[in-house]
């Protein structure tokens, strides 16, 4: 009797808003797969021979899977988290050995008529294990040992997946670091990662461009300037030392400005030497502060400043030593090289397809670019092209907004969890969605590197659809139990 009541309560507590967004995205995704794969000789969108017909089967089975998942109690996951994790790791390891070679990667397991990609299913296992770990009594993210175990749980499957030659899928696991940030990991680590990316992109992209009439590389100049600003910002945020900030800002930016003016109006020279010197002085000053105040933070900031200053020169040297094709990929990505038939072909065709959509798009099944197969991989990794071409700006912007609402909703749901396990798992789920959205759409728009990962609910394929459904509905069931008292 009581159990029945509990189940009923659970049914009422399910987050129907999320499920609504989920169904909308899946339906829209199916329409896009139809657009990308439509075969005019086979007008039946539901025929099993077509990708659209298969995708609808994947979608329906996903709904069944979702329903089943809603019936499995949270207690089960709480108990079995590590077992599930262990089993999945074993499966990943076995896959390396037994999977047949598919386009150079060993990640697909043929099971009867279908092929499954274990990497897609390993994410939920990692998320569960992390939730379980961090829910344990006495776990603290500040403890070196605890954070070490958490990072180990994340890195181990990454290595296995890299061994399957699916680097793209492995990179998704970086999403878990966003969750760790929410759980209290110091934000400076995220900031360092962000700074690295900014330095690399700005430095590489503009390394061969020069400020007008001056022998100053824009890339070098910008990276050094950013290094100063970031270091001063860190001193401000983490040490609250207003005096030091004023001194550093005045001397660094002041001398850079003086050098710039001198170069413009008197004798043009490479002011980067001056900036380099100022950076060295600044590092010295921060070390001095560390000695004076005995604050460990200053040492960290000083090393950040040192690495930032040398970053441009290190990457520039490494870049020259890269293999030619790797260098070309990076150059195409950063827009330094136009190479429409070579490495940038996919991205270029993708941009043309999207660009041709205009404001309202060409209409369902009317996209010429995607129908004439100009865009490779258009029903899987490049599915966003179809949305852009057939739905236009309005359609693709609406899709992005729908995704934003979906992720915000998940943040809201994660935050209302009463225990750490639910919240950690929820954040894992939403960070994975966010990461996929960021990389996949960014890649199609030519903003992020071409990493072959799917757009959740849109890209064709059963494995990814089931994988994302699994991730999401375990969380929705956990959420539904939030009002039950814990025994």
């Amino acid at each position, binding site marked *: 009797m009581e159990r029945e009541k509990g189940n009923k309560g659970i049914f009422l507590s399910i987050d129907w808003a999320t499920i609504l967004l989920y169904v909308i995205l899946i339906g829209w995704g199916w329409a896009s797969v139809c657009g990308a794969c439509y*075969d005019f000789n086979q007008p039946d969108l539901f025929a099993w021979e077509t990708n659209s017909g298969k995708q609808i089967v994947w979608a329906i089975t996903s709904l069944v899977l979702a329903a089943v998942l809603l019936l499995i109690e949270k207690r089960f996951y709480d108990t079995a988290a590590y077992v599930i994790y262990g089993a999945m790791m074993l499966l990943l390891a076995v896959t390396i050995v037994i999977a047949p070679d598919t386009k150079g990667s060993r990640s697909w397991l043929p099971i009867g008529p279908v092929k499954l990609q274990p990497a897609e299913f390993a994410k939920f296992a990692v998320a569960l294990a992390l939730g379980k770990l961090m829910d344990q009594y006495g776990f603290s993210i500040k403890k070196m040992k605890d954070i070490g175990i958490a990072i180990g749980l994340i890195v181990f499957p990454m290595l296995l997946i890299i061994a399957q030659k699916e680097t793209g899928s492995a990179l998704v696991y970086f999403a878990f670091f966003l969750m760790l940030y929410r759980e209290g990991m110091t934000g400076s680590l995220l900031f360092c990662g962000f700074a690295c990316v900014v330095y690399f992109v700005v430095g590489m992209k503009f390394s061969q461009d020069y400020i007008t009439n001056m022998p100053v590389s824009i890339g070098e100049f910008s990276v050094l300037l950013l290094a100063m600003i970031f270091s001063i910002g860190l001193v401000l945020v983490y040490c609250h030392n207003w005096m030091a900030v004023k001194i550093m800002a005045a001397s660094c930016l002041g001398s850079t400005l003086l050098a710039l003016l001198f170069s413009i109006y008197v004798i043009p020279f490479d002011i980067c030497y001056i900036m380099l010197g100022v950076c060295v002085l600044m590092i010295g000053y921060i070390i001095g502060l560390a000695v004076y105040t005995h604050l460990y933070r200053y040492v960290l900031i000083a090393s950040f400043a040192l690495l930032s200053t040398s970053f441009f020169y290190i990457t520039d040297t490494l870049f020259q030593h890269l293999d030619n094709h790797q260098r070309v990929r990076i150059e195409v990505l950063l827009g330094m090289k136009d190479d429409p038939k070579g490495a940038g072909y996919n991205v270029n065709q993708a941009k043309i397809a999207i660009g041709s959509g205009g404001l309202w798009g060409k209409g369902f099944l009317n996209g010429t670019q995607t129908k004439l197969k100009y865009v490779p991989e258009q029903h899987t990794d490049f599915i966003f092209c179809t949305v852009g071409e057939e739905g236009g700006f309005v359609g693709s912007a609406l899709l992005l907004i729908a995704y934003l609402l979906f992720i915000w909703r998940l943040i809201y749901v994660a935050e209302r969890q009463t225990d750490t396990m639910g919240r950690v798992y929820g954040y894992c789920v939403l960070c994975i969605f966010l990461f996929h959205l960021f990389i996949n759409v960014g890649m199609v728009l030519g903003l992020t590197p071409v990493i072959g990962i799917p757009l959740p609910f849109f890209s064709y394929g059963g494995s990814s659809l089931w994988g994302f459904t699994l991730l999401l509905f375990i969380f929705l069931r956990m959420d539904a139990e939030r009002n039950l008292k814990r025994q």
Partner: protein
Amino acid sequence: MKSFKYEYRKYVLAGIALIIVLSYITRLAFLQLSDEEYKTRADDNAFFNNVIFPARGVIYDRNGELLVYNQPAYDIMVIMREVTNLDTLDFCNTLGITKEQFDERMRIIKDDKKNPGYSSYTQQLFMGQISTEDFSIFQEKLFRFHGFYVRERTIRRYATDYCAHVLGDVAEVSQKEVDKDDYYSPGDYIGKQGVERSYEPELRGEKGVEVLLRDARGRIQGHYKNGALDRKPVPGKNLTLSIDAKLQALGERLMEGKMGAIVAIEPKTGEILCMVSAPSYDPHRMEGKQRGAQMMEMQRDPMKPMLNRAISGTYPPGSTFKTSQGLTFLQEGIITNTTAYPCSRGFRIGRMKVGCHGHGAPLPLIPAIATSCNGYFCWGLYHMLNNRTKYKTIQDAMTTWKNYMVSMGFGYKLGVDLPGEARGMIPNAEYYDRRLGNWNALGVISIAIGQGEVTLTPLQIANLGATIANRGYYITPHIVKHIQGGHLADSLKVKHKTMVDTCYYRMVVEGMRKAVQGGTCKSANTSMYEVCGKTGTAQNRGQDHSAFMGFAPKDNPKIAIAVYVENGGFGAHYGVPIGALMMEQYIKGELSPASEAKANTFQHKHINYGTRER
């Protein structure tokens, strides 16, 4: 347990999501709303430019005999998604390919990298240039091969078995040619050698284009803007060569089993009447699909049949060169028509000796040419180079000599309208300064008799004959007489006057006439018309080369000719008789029965060259 300490961070994450989505929407706005570039590029993709190939111009000889024409050929096209229930075995047998070749071809068609813009809805090239015979078998079964279509094209056909070097050939453009000229796209045909190459722009015409619209299925919807942007193809222009096909055929017959070249020029116009390079090859070998394999085979042949020796081969001209020396010495006042030089079986100063055969001595110029006296011309050059009253230094003398040679068309390309012309070699003062350092007339004396550093192409030797026939000028030799609906390049009509006056040419003509009447070219003498000639016997590492340079008739000459037979021995062995037969053929229009018999003998007189790489 709820963790409140870091709850603010949910806003950071929500903010990150917001920033990502907003920046992507901005990017979308840029791509889809503001930038027209992507729209035009998408249009390029959705438009289908259907290229219409014009008929390539055909080629005639000077008498209007057809040499090269076009024949329909067929490309087999495939629409991938329409291929159903294909009996692969039957299909392969019909086309004469293996199952492996079939699979390989199908794989390449589907490969986006090798076949960009591939669509399974549109026709893709499966196999090119099927001949009419093969096609007729295929056509009978075509209805059974669903998804396969046929596209008509033309291939080049040759109506002659001769003239391969001059005509050249046509083949698919290379990537390099596509990169160099925007006109070409991969799969187009282009002239690769001979006239086909040098007159490519005239022969090819201009491609036409139909701008068609495709829908999302790749199906043609009709002409864009009702065909306002369509261009009709402009057919290629027909060429009439200056070649006389009969003369060319005789020349190639006579050179059978030999190496060397024959070039004949009409002196008044500079038109090349025949250009034989031996060994030659049957132009039919360059037709259609087999071209690649045939090319490979010929390129591996140590005899180098692909090389056009008439313009690309450079040889020591031997005694034919002496005429140019006589002219130079006369004009420079080194000799007069009465100057006689001694020759005691050659030219001797100190230990220097250039041998000569036995003849009366001392001799003046005309008999010296008639008997081809080495001594005479060595003395002439010796006196010229050592004349310090006329020239301050030996370098000055050498430079003057070189200028005479260049004015006669030596040392530089003549500018014939064929690809691959060589320039030969005329040494100058700087060359000897660099090569020999301190040098004197004796050290270079052999250039006076067409040996040493001097080399000419057979075309340049024939042109020398034309210059003497014209008594002092030549028109740039050329192979195309007339372009239908066009006109020849002005550079082919230029009259080049040499530095020697007409009166001196008359003396040399007299010498060449004497050579035929009673000198080295006796066997060329005929009662039908007056022949002038000069033999050449050029020394080289092996057996001497046999050469002949001459023209006929003496007054109002119709033909000037050079014959060069590698390792043929004395000039009189091969050069003179072959030259005589050629002149007879051209002037009389046919050979007399006696000459015909002689021609047969020479046709079957082969020279053994061994297998040495040359």
